[in-house]
């Protein structure tokens, strides 16, 4: 299936290093993946794993050490012409994690939402701009009269929706959503997720969704990449990944999700992962496609084990279907 899809964004062996004086911190190691048009691609991992760093690198906030990011066939990382830079900033928008700190407290909602429009002069007249802002507000379920208010007058869910309104008013093609729901309550979380889904259907948006709540990730994403300590360890379609996790880290993440079912949850066993199960001293690992669409970070020996597992499962499933 993925082959006949158009690649929108492609990350090629990117490395990100933070430096402070002589100190260096390698945040992202040699990471590559493609994102197809119209899909929701999720990055999951624990805090400090580098998932937000990747998201920020895509919107050109973080510099790459090496590697490149290609957006619609054009390189968007490193030094690029100013005109292209503006195009990228316009077409790739970001929704930030914390609705409390990502909005300018001293600006009205009107200004916050239309700031991007001002910068790119995307309106014909003042009337047109207002029209666009109101439309964006309505589409996220806020009222037009809200635009004269200040962010502190809104609840957490409403603030997050203002954050969404300000990204979609730019009519982007690609949105990097950095944990847009982790600061929200259960009922509001559903509202925001539905909203994002609705935009995707209506406007053919592509999302890069960064999250650590795996139950939500499973519900919304088409494909998922699991990242651990700056390295992507496994990448697959979401159901495939949830049903047949191969990498031990993915496995430990899955076992950590609390299941909202008292019987199952109380029987559940917890897996811990500390990386000690790998022996990479001689046999160096690499990024391989172990099954069409299912990528994993493994060395030769592990590859054999994983392939065997897949084979076993195939036989098991066939037998199951015969029954």
């Amino acid at each position, binding site marked *: 299936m993925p082959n006949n899809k158009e690649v929108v964004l492609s990350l090629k062996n990117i490395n990100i290093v933070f430096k402070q004086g002589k100190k260096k911190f390698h945040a992202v190691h040699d990471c590559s993946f493609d994102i197809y048009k119209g899909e929701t691609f999720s990055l999951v991992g624990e805090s400090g794993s580098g998932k937000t760093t990747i998201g920020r690198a895509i919107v050109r906030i973080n510099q790459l050490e090496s590697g490149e990011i290609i957006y619609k066939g054009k390189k968007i990382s490193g030094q690029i012409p100013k005109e292209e830079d503006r195009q990228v900033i316009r077409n790739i928008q970001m929704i930030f994690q914390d609705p409390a700190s990502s909005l300018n407290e001293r600006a009205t909602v009107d200004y916050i939402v239309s700031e991007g429009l001002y910068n790119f002069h995307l309106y014909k007249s003042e009337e047109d701009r207002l029209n666009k802002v109101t439309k964006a507000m309505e589409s996220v379920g806020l009222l037009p009269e809200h635009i004269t208010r200040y962010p502190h007058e809104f609840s957490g869910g409403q603030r997050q929706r203002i954050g969404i309104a300000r990204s979609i008013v730019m009519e982007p093609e690609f949105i990097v959503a950095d944990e847009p729901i982790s600061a929200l309550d259960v009922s509001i979380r559903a509202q925001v997720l539905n909203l994002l889904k609705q935009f995707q259907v209506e406007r053919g948006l592509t999302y890069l969704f960064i999250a650590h709540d795996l139950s939500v990730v499973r519900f919304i994403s088409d494909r998922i990449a699991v990242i651990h300590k700056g390295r992507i360890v496994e990448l697959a379609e979401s159901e495939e990944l949830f049903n047949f996790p191969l990498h031990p880290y993915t496995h430990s993440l899955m076992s950590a999700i609390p*299941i909202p079912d*008292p019987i199952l949850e109380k029987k559940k066993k917890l897996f811990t992962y500390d990386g000690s199960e790998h022996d990479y001293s001689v046999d160096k690992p690499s990024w391989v496609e172990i099954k069409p669409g299912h990528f994993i970070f493994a060395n030769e020996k592990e590859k054999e084990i994983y392939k065997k597992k897949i084979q076993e499962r195939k036989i098991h499933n066939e037998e199951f279907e015969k029954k």
Partner: protein
Amino acid sequence: MERKKLLTIRHLDVKFNVRARILSAIRDITMEIYEGENIAIVGESGSGKSVLTKTFTGMLESNGVISHGKIIYHNKELEDTSVHVDPLDVYFYKQIKKELLEALKSCTSEEAKNLNTPERLNTLAVDLMCSIDRFPFFKKFGAFFKLKKIFSGAIKDNILLTDKKIDRLIAKVTFKVSPVDKNYVLPVKGDNIKAVCTIDLAKIKLNKDWQKIRGVRIATVFQDPMTSLNPIRSIGSQITEVIIKHRGLSNEEAKKEAISLMEKVGIIDAAKRFNEYSFQYSGGMRQRIVIAIALACRPQILICDEPTTALDVTIQAQIIQLIKDLQKEFGFTTIYITHDLGVVASVADRVAVIYAGQIVEIGKVEEIYYEPKHPYTWALLSSLPQLSEKGSELFSIKGTPPSLYNEVKGDAFAPRNPYALKIDFVEEPPMFEVTPTHFAKTWLLDPRAPKVESPKIIHDLHIKMAAKANLEGVMDDAK
């Protein structure tokens, strides 16, 4: 099975004074907490779940008051006390007795006269004297005058002073302390009276009293481990401080105890990390330290206020496991506050669902998940992403919770409730009993109500979850 009650909460109301407006955060909550159980309190933000537990440790913000109700804490150790009689107490006793007997003269009802005998009033005077003994000098006078006024007024108004009535009247000022020996009638200077008190947490005002409860017998683990630790003091000193203060150990002993506690909560190389600071710890490790501090005094009740919300899934699972393991060892009762239904399923024996300051449904965890009765619980379960078909719309509760500044008419959830009946907008539903352990506050359970099916999406929850969960290797006994 008869279990021992630890906390009895009756008709609790908490009000906040916010910029000259009154906000009713807790509205008439009645519940019990039993010894050794794990109870989870579930609700949206602003529903009052944190406020409720803050009343147990007297940590309400300064603009909040318990306007009504009681929280009785059953603790043998604290209930036994002794009252030392000094000349001032004898004076109070004599004054109260005199006043009460005088009031009796103007009592006209025969029935009241028969019950409020001088002997009985004498016992009452002794009780009152004991009850105000805990107060410091000046407050003692205040309490004395208040109680004197209340009781003489009551006798004049021909009120029958039954035991229950007396308790309630005393509760207006303080909680009751009465001598163990019922025949103790004449307090004499220098006596040491053995007494029992009924500890009503809602009535405790003195810091001295709170110090015997907060942190010692009822401890709290907060959501954000960064703000609950002191950044400029070493981790070790923060743990030993509690041990030295409350358990009276020496510095050396306290350090030993602190290191063993740190090891228990899973800090590797505890002796070395004893002198480090909180910024040198990761989020999960900090939360472990907060738990260690909470457990330093071997509390009877541990309140976990969203202990894992700020943490990652993997760390969250470890912390929950840690609390469970420690509970087995120390045998405390835990009260979890959370909005994550996954966490609730993993930790709780009983669940209380709270909405707009009221408990709308309470029951065993299996009853709440598999046989929910309240539409709000239905809605909460329906919005679980695990239950929705991929690509379909996720269920979301329409509207917003009611403003608690205004008086809520009828059922607070009615405006958002697709199953609301007409009566829901007019009259508040009572608690209906579903089973002896399961109660729900909805008119749908009234025999006169139309039969309403719970939403299809939450039927067979267990089967649906089992189908979704990757059972392979995760379960002890797969499938």
